[in-house]
């Protein structure tokens, strides 16, 4: 079943950067990022486990990773600087 509460978006160019991809896989405590044959994947099944820790936002250049809450008003977590 699709995620109900959280969506994560990674800029397509960033997803191709092996170093950043590896970092994302490493920092996320609930394994939302995975690397299968070199490509960065979002693990749909784990999206709802996101703990909103923002570690992924800090692991990539500003604005390139977005964590969206699919509930309530303040919807998108994104690093500005």
């Amino acid at each position, binding site marked *: 079943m699709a995620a*109900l*509460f959280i969506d994560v978006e990674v800029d397509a160019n960033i997803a191709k950067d092996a170093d950043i991809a590896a970092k994302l896989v490493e920092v996320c405590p609930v394994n939302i990022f995975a690397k299968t044959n070199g490509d960065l994947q979002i693990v749909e099944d784990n999206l*709802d486990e996101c*703990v909103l820790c923002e570690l992924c936002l800090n692991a990539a250049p500003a604005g390139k990773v977005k964590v969206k809450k699919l*509930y309530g008003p303040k919807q998108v977590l994104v690093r500005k600087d």
Partner: protein
Amino acid sequence: MRFYEFESKKLFGMKGIPLPSGSRVAKSAAEAKEIAASIGGPVVLKSQVLSGGRMKAGGVLFADTPDEAVAAAEKILALEINGHAPVGVLVEGRAPIDQEYYVGVTWDGFARQPVMIFSDMGGIDIEEVAEKHPEHIAKRNFSTLAPFSEFMAKELVAAVGVSGGELNKLTQITTRLARTFIEHGLTLAEINPLARLADGTFVCLDGHVDMEDEARDGQKALLAKLEIDPQEKRQARPPTKFEQDGVVVDSADHRGVAGNVVEFDGDLGLVIGAGGGSLTLFDAVRKHGGRPANYCEIGGNPSVSKACNLTKLILSKPGVKKIAVMMNVVSNTRVDIVARGVVKGCVELGFDPAEKIAIFRIPGSWEGDGFQILEHYGVEYCDRSVSMFEAAGRAVAKMKDA
């Protein structure tokens, strides 16, 4: 974990505590006959259940011949005692008794040390002896740091006036019992009665052993020798299917706890926590006249999937109309994570969370996000200004029209 009598005796036997002749457990009447024949004299047959009151219920019978033993074993094996089916029948030799004693080792919560208890009035409830015949009972704590020494047991036994050859025999048995208690993480090691037979020897007529769950990991070797499944949970009654499924949900991942599910027969499912909060909330639901379908404990910040699967388990239980999701003010468990889990559980089963969740009362850590989720799904929730008792009342009220 309570041991069956035959397991207790097997353990005692391994430690050199004398048992009645030929003491062995039989799973069938035929096996009982064999044991009785090998003993070759009068025997006693005892139902192996964890429930008390065996004697009164007819779970203890005597036989003088192997054929009588077959008949007795058949009766016992077919007899449920307080809803417990026996796991076997213990067969052992019977000999004339001169006197019965009591010896036990357990924890003393005041002293925070183990305590040995001895009495020359065995065979009856030891608390009754303590109340009515205090001069027939002796107690002695012993250190957990200093090595156990025999004189400690000797002082205990001598304190009720036992002397002569008996003193030495009883000291030895008590010492062995205390050392068994220490070595195997027991919370109770008890021989009652400990009988002095007509020939002057002592035997353990009945034994109780309780091992704490926390000690089990370190006692795998012993449990294997006693053929006890290390996973086996021995509550006062065997676990139901629902409760076993709860264990599966809880062990799916290591994040937090969403388990300790206990089945009741009501219509209001409870997703409650943590240890103390669950007790408080269960009382509150009952006080309002609600009928809980289950008890459970969530805590330690379980994953969304764990909360979700627990919700699904409870909602799928026959007769459950709604669930109430309630906890004390939480610090480490996150409100938003639990909210996601329970909403998801409803949705995945094709239910409307607003309809299925009678009330959500978990204030505390990350409540802002949690409440947003609940609002989004139209679930009735309350914050810390609404007491646990009041929240339980609201849930019960909703059941009236469910």
